[in-house]
Structure formats: structure tokens, C-alpha cells
């Protein structure tokens, strides 16, 4: 089996998911210069809600698998949108204009609240993603691809394309970019910054929910604590691409997924088996540290050294 090609494929799948989550971080940062650390937890909530809804529908029976999946996904997206909106209203809006440390602390508090809420609802054990379809396996140049992997990548790329269209071709997107550049000036255009900020959180949360469902479908599991590491990696992806930059988050996510997969694939052979693929997570944070030291503005970032 060709390890390079295989890991590249795995990396693309993982990278698509990171990219979707990273968009939530980067869009909010672009407008508010705030790291919404609760975003990983929104992703987790998406996964948990989807599994819970699908479980309920399956035990009720009578619905075809595709409908069950669609309803689970729709529930996850809509509840997460409400969640994203509420997080901003409750945890960040009252602190608008406060020192930057204050919303950072409520962000962490918010993520603890969400984690514990999930734990209270679903317990500490892993939830398993129901097997709705028998995944097809394809072999290509010595590497394996499953239909689920293809679905994840195609769906992620479609969503990212749609987001780019929204940001660059619509009235709302123009308002978002204007507000990101100068909220004061955007106000003079008649743009209510609060509306734009709410939409930003809602869109980010919807993408995060889809990513959460993807992760849990891919690994077959979800857990109340899964949002922490996932969020941290997606944040790394956003920094890698240049935080605040939408295209950067997509690029950063994809790259991070590939770096991680290739790293995990090669670390065993390269160290003579001394370090195994469970060191996968090290790569993400190695990338984060390297970026922060050598290019804190990220690959596509523009605003260098503008703020402390």
C-alpha cells in the first residue's frame, strides 16, 4: 500500500473538517478580533445532537436511513445556530468594548458550560454514530477511499464555495467585510453591526455543526469532551492560514489535516518504531508554535504587527 497517497487522502478528509471549523474562528476574529473559544464546543454539540436525534428516530423506526441522517443533520445545524447566536448575546455582547482579556475569559467559561451541559445530557460515555449505510470502498493506485470520505470532502468543498460566494457576492457578505474593516464606518453606511455580528456567529456555528457531524460519522464516535482538541486544532488551522482571512482558514485547515496525516504515517518508520501514530496531535501544535514564532500573521494574513 502506498502510504503517502493513503495519508494524503486521509489528510484531505481531516483537513476538510478542520477547515469548516476554522472558518467559524476566523470569521468571528475578522469582525470582533475575538477568539471564540467556545466554537469547538458548538461543533461537539452538533455531533451529539445529530447522534441523539438519529438514535431517537431509528428506535421509533419506519424512516429510511437517508431521511434519518438528513433530520439529524438539520437538527444539529439549527440548534447550533441558535447556540451560536445565544453565545454571542450572552457571553460577548455585554463585554463589547471591555479589555480584550474579559471576553477571552467568558469564552473559556462558555466552553466549560457547554461541555458540562453535554455531559449532563448525554453522560460521560462515548456515543456511537449509528451505521446507516454500508460504506463503499474504492481502491485507487494502491490507496483506499471510502464513499464517506468522498462525501465529507465534497460536502465541505461545496459549503466553502457557498461561503465564499456569500462573503464576496452578497449584500450581507459586503456588510460583513465592511464591518470587519471598520465597524464605525460600516455604521455610517446604515449597517447595524450587531446584525452582522449575529449572522457571523450563526453561519460559523452552522458550519461547525456540519463539521461535528462529519467527525462523528468518520470516527463513528462522539463525546462531550471532543470539542476541546478539535477546536484547538481548527484554531491552529485558522492561525496557519492567517486568522481573520476566510480563504486562509480553508487553506490552513486542509494543510493542517495533510501535515497531521503525513506526520502520523511517517513518524513510525522514521523513528524506527520508537514513536507511533498516536503522536499525531503533536504535529498540529508544532505547526502552531512554528507559525506563531516565524509568521504570526499566517500564510494569507495581511495585518502584521498591527496589534499587540
Amino acid at each position, binding site marked *: 500500500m502506498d502510504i503517502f497517497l493513503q495519508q494524503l487522502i486521509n489528510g484531505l478528509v481531516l483537513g476538510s473538517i478542520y477547515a469548516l471549523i476554522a472558518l467559524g474562528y476566523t470569521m468571528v476574529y475578522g469582525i470582533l478580533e475575538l477568539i471564540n473559544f467556545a466554537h469547538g464546543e458548538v461543533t461537539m454539540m452538533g455531533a451529539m445532537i445529530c447522534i441523539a436525534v438519529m438514535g431517537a428516530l431509528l428506535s421509533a423506526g419506519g424512516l429510511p436511513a437517508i431521511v434519518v441522517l438528513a433530520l439529524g443533520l438539520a437538527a444539529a445545524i439549527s440548534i447550533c445556530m441558535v447556540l451560536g447566536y445565544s453565545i454571542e448575546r450572552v457571553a460577548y455582547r455585554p463585554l463589547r468594548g471591555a479589555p480584550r482579556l474579559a471576553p477571552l475569559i467568558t469564552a473559556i467559561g462558555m466552553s466549560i458550560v457547554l461541555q458540562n451541559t453535554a455531559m449532563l445530557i448525554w453522560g460521560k460515555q462515548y456515543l456511537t454514530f449509528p451505521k446507516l449505510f454500508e460504506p463503499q470502498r474504492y481502491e485507487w493506485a494502491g490507496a483506499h477511499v471510502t464513499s464517506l470520505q468522498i462525501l465529507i470532502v465534497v460536502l465541505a468543498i461545496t459549503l466553502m464555495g457557498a461561503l465564499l460566494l456569500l462573503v464576496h457576492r452578497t449584500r450581507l457578505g*459586503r*456588510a460583513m*467585510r*465592511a464591518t470587519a*474593516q471598520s465597524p464605525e464606518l460600516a*455604521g455610517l453606511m446604515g449597517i447595524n*453591526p450587531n446584525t452582522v455580528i449575529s449572522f457571523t456567529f450563526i453561519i460559523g456555528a452552522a458550519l461547525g455543526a456540519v463539521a461535528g457531524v462529519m467527525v462523528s460519522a468518520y470516527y463513528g464516535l462522539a463525546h462531550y469532551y471532543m470539542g476541546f482538541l478539535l477546536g484547538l486544532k481548527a484554531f491552529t488551522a485558522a492561525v496557519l492560514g492567517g486568522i481573520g482571512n476566510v480563504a486562509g482558514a480553508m487553506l490552513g485547515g486542509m494543510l493542517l489535516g495533510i501535515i497531521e496525516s503525513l506526520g502520523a504515517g511517517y513518524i513510525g518508520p522514521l523513528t524506527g518504531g520508537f514513536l507511533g501514530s498516536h503522536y499525531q496531535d503533536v504535529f498540529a501544535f508544532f505547526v502552531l508554535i512554528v507559525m506563531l514564532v516565524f509568521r504570526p500573521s499566517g500564510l494569507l494574513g495581511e495585518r502584521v504587527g498591527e496589534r499587540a
Partner: protein
Amino acid sequence: MSRATSSNKQSLLSVRDLRVAYGGVVAVKGIDLEVGRGELVCLIGANGAGKTTTLKALAGMLRPAGGTIRYDGHAITRRRSYELVSLGIALVPEGRGIFGRLSVLENLKLGAYVRRDTLGVSQDLDRGFELFPRLAERRSQIAGTLSGGEQQMLAIARALMSRPRLLLLDEPSMGLAPIMVQRIFGTIRRIAAEGVTLLLVEQNARLALEISRRGYVMESGRVTLADEAAALLANPDVKRAYLGG
């Protein structure tokens, strides 16, 4: 003073005892202003007299500490800037204030953000390009790469895209070459001729008074003189202080 403040019934903008604090300092200490419908009025004064702060308060960017602002008969004293745009108030801020990373066309479309009449917007877009042919040539260029004069044109054109009834202009001549200043002031005159009410803040007092009907002189947060523009141009005190003798 009497003549300048007598036209109350026709007033589009009427300001009473406006006080505005800015960064802990009271920059505007209780001023009265009247701008009649279709009038071109200027507000002149030295640097730091409170002119920009006054305009920012009128545009809803700063919350007044006291006094009232009435526009078209309604009190708008505590309204936010984004609420005032759809009422017909537009500000061209000091230092242009364009969206530098967006294209010229996107800047103009943002000017029409509150409008839903697509047809009217595209007509106004054409009109803006007719008023400033330079902008038409550069419509897909990133606004931050325009020259200072072009940016000022863009800022004015963008403000007009909201079809304002009251246009507030803050230092449109600042930092521009004399030829460009002439061109910008020609445009301002043309906008006024089309019936838009204008309140112009300007350090170049002579230029401002020459195109205005009436003028106010501000000094450390207070209005010290208010009269017909021609009278102010002839006033020895104004001459000495603002018109270079």
C-alpha cells in the same frame, strides 16, 4: 445671530444647546445650529474647535452629553449612525474613510446598503460615475490604491448613493492638491444645486464661505459667530483669524 437662526420653520436640521464629550474632554460646549432645507451651510474654525466632534454627533457616531438634535421635525438626539442613514443623513468623514480593501464598486454599493430599490440604485450608480468619471474607470480597483483626491471623490459618491437629504461633509479639502480641491468644491456646489442640504466643515474658511449661504464660526467648543457667508467674509475679525488678514 438673529438672521442666522430665524428660519426655524424651514429648518431641516435644528440643534439646540448641543454638548458632546469626546475622550473625557467636553469638545462641544452647548451650540445652536440651524440648517434650512436646500441650504449650504458651513462650519469653520481652527483645529480643535469642535467641528468634527459636532458632525460626528449629528451623524450618530458620538452620543451627545446634552442638548437636542431635531431633523425634519423629529428628535434624533440619541439615534445611532446606522439608524440615521435611512432617515436621509449621510456623513463623509474626515480623512475620507473609505473601505480600503474593498473595490470602488463595492464601496459605492455599500453606500446604498439601506436601499431596496435595485433600479434606483443602479441609476444612482450611473449618475455617480457621470459625476466622477475617474471612478468609473477604476470601478473594479481596490479603493485603498486610489489617490487621495480619488478617495475623496469616492467618499462623496458613496455618501450620495444613500440619496441623502442632509449631507455632512468633514474637511473635504484636507490633504488635497489645489486643483483637486477646486474640483471637489465644484462638485459640492453641484450637489447643493440639485437640492441636497449640506453642512460643510472646513478649515479652508475662504473656500467654504465662498460657496455657502450661511456660516458658523466655532471656537473652543462654542459658536462665536453666525451670519450670512458674505457678511462673514467681510467681517474684520473673521478676516484676521481665518482668512489670512
